């Protein structure tokens, strides 16, 4: 019944007059894609081009499934594809498929290596890492060679494109400090599948090993940050040992930031990204290409020269004093944020009256 309802809403793209745009999401575990980007993009398209139909697919973390979805999009009569690569490293097949079928692809957020794309709307992954690194450098500035700051680094899934980029960005700021002897890395570990529960036990082990002598934790996203904070909580270290370097502005992370447990999260204004993507999609549908003026740079994807024409959007590094941005942008409401223990924070008291 559900299927029928979904399928009949727009009819087949190839036969009806309106154009169909497929948005292909990578997984269901990175909450923002299903809860924010998908609906936001759909809404933005509705505004920009009411007769266009948007179909959203999710590859459930399987690149193989994503190629299949590209193929299906093509036979379903897609006029454009907005692709969030399930695995940026092996998105080539999907891109080639679309290019052979002459369906323009707009890359969304994730890079996609190994094939042609019309454009990319992106928050630079490297700059996410750089932001996280900067935060860390700022907090760790007090370290000296005599009394270096001791940190734990919890990476993402080993072998992921993102993990590699974030690490590169973070290292640009952290490595010099390490070299100078001002910062000591006590533990570093990859977290299989970004599993928060794994991050938690990794953190517990690090605390055990060092006897709680940790000055800061540097992570790569909000999920693993949550795991680390749960481990710190058990040692009553929350608030004393800052967790630096989340990203995605997950609801729980925002709450932790207000509670003072998490230092920062890199916020990528999803709404902005979605509306920019919608804007470019409309250009693609109408003109088949994107205006030069919109392009602000290129992303090297190992295939296109000089790279995928890109619209770089600024990421924002959010701290306790700037989380209101999220409310302004409509990501979360204060009502959503100020639940449970968070309700008792000063910010919440002020906002909720």
């Amino acid at each position, binding site marked *: 019944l559900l299927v029928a309802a979904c399928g*009949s809403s727009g009819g087949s793209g*190839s036969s009806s007059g309106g154009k169909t745009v497929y948005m292909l999401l990578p997984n269901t575990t990175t909450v923002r894609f299903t809860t924010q980007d998908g609906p936001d993009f759909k809404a933005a398209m509705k505004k920009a081009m009411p007769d266009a139909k948007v179909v*959203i697919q999710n590859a*459930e973390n399987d690149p193989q499934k994503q190629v299949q979805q590209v193929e*299906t999009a093509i*036979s379903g009569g897609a006029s454009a594809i907005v692709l969030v690569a399930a695995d940026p*490293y092996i998105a080539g097949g999907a891109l080639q498929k679309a290019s052979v079928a002459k369906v323009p692809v707009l890359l969304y957020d994730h890079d996609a*290596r190994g094939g042609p794309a019309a454009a990319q709307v992106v928050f630079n992954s490297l700059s996410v890492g750089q932001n996280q690194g900067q935060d860390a450098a700022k907090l760790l500035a007090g370290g000296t060679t005599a009394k270096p700051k001791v940190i734990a680094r919890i990476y993402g899934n080993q*072998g*992921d494109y993102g993990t590699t980029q974030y690490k590169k960005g973070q290292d640009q700021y952290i490595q010099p400090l390490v070299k100078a002897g001002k910062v000591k890395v006590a533990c570093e570990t990859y977290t299989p599948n970004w599993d928060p529960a794994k991050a938690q036990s990794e953190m517990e082990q690090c605390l055990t090993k060092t006897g709680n002598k940790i000055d800061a934790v540097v992570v790569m996203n909000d999920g693993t940050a949550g795991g680390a904070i749960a481990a710190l909580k058990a040692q009553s270290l929350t608030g004393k040992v800052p967790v630096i370097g989340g990203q995605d502005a997950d609801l729980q992370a925002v709450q932790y930031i207000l509670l003072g447990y998490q230092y920062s999260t890199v916020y990528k204004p999803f709404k902005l990204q979605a509306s920019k993507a919608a804007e470019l999609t409309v250009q693609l549908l109408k003109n088949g290409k994107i205006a030069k003026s919109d392009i602000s740079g290129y992303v090297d994807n190992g295939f296109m020269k000089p790279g995928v024409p890109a619209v770089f959007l600024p990421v924002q590094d959010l701290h306790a004093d700037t989380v209101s941005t999220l409310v302004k942008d409509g990501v979360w409401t204060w009502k959503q944020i100020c639940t449970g223990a968070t309700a008792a924070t000063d910010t919440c008291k002020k906002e909720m009256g």
Partner: protein
Amino acid sequence: MTTSNQSPAAVAATSSPPPVARVEGRQSRRRQVLDAIAGRYRFVPVVLMLAVIWAFFTAQDSAFMGNRNITNLLVQIVVTATIALGIVFVLLLAEIDLSVAANSGAAAALTAILVVNHSWPAWLGLLAGIAAGAAVGLIQGAVVTQFGVPSFVVTLGAQLMLLGAILVLLPGGTGQVSLFGTGIATLSSTYLPPALGWALTAAGIVAFVLLRLLALGESRRRGIGMSLVREVVAPGILVGAASITAVAVLNSYLGVPLPVVILFALLIVFSYITTQTRFGLHLYAVGANPDAARRAGIPVARAKMIAFSLAGALAALGGILAASRLLGVSASSGTGTVLLESIAAAVIGGTSLFGGRGSVWDALLGALVIGSISNGLDLIGAETVVKYVAEGSILVLAATVDSILTRGSVFARATK
């Protein structure tokens, strides 16, 4: 009580009274049909299910039955079907292989590195990958048979180790290998010219009919009556019609894709081996009763090791085909849903998890069911939740139908 206490003389044999005869006639016909469906004609309900799925999606979106989408569908299922084919072998022997997905990823990584970083010719890299997959399967088979360790555990452990191997294999800095422009990539972008497609089809049909005729002749010479229509004509028409339709559809788009040709070649070869040769028969014997097989002098351990090697080799081939489609390998190769889907395909197709029952064609049919659902749901733009629920329930439904059909037949599980 009617016939009791009579003299020691025999009572005349009872001729069954009318009401009983009626019951018999009705019941026995129904039972015979059920028996046939549980046995030789096990594919019928799966094909029916497939027909329902296709009809449903075609009604939703006519593009589903387009030449192009059919071509897509066939190409999409090749990887699952190839890996499921290997799974059928291990399931036939009442074993399981949970390492196939990781094995496919590792083999693809190996092939990619040999071809891209070490400049091996594509065919050699392909062979090396398949050989590596077979070797991994063989080792697992050896542990299973020599120490009697449950294959569930061995292959689960091997899966973890192979995931580690993928990380080791992939070049340190980048964690990926691109296959764009290599010979491996052409594997999945090649389509047969229409004429060649037709020629292969014709050859296949003729060979099929000849084989059937041969068997019929032998039986009749030995005085064993067999029906020409049931043994030769009907199957010949069925197989002929199905393959001619399929090739016509494919040819009207881009031609028969090379991966599809590979899959069918494998299916035909393994179908011959499992149904016509001694080794094939032994697989069924070992799967049903390894003890009896061993007493009959069948090398049980060898059969199992061969099955695991085949599963490994086919997983490797599947992985390489997947990489060829994705134009690269990375740490996510060998993860994802391919493991569960290929096992599910074999089971939905009709292969029993308890050994001794199944056919290599089950891999194809099951992969078609799963692939069609996934393809169709994508096409109509169903939500993720709908997909999860649809795939989960079709799986359970298919297995329920199977077990209701085979219930009470020798193919049923010992008991419920």
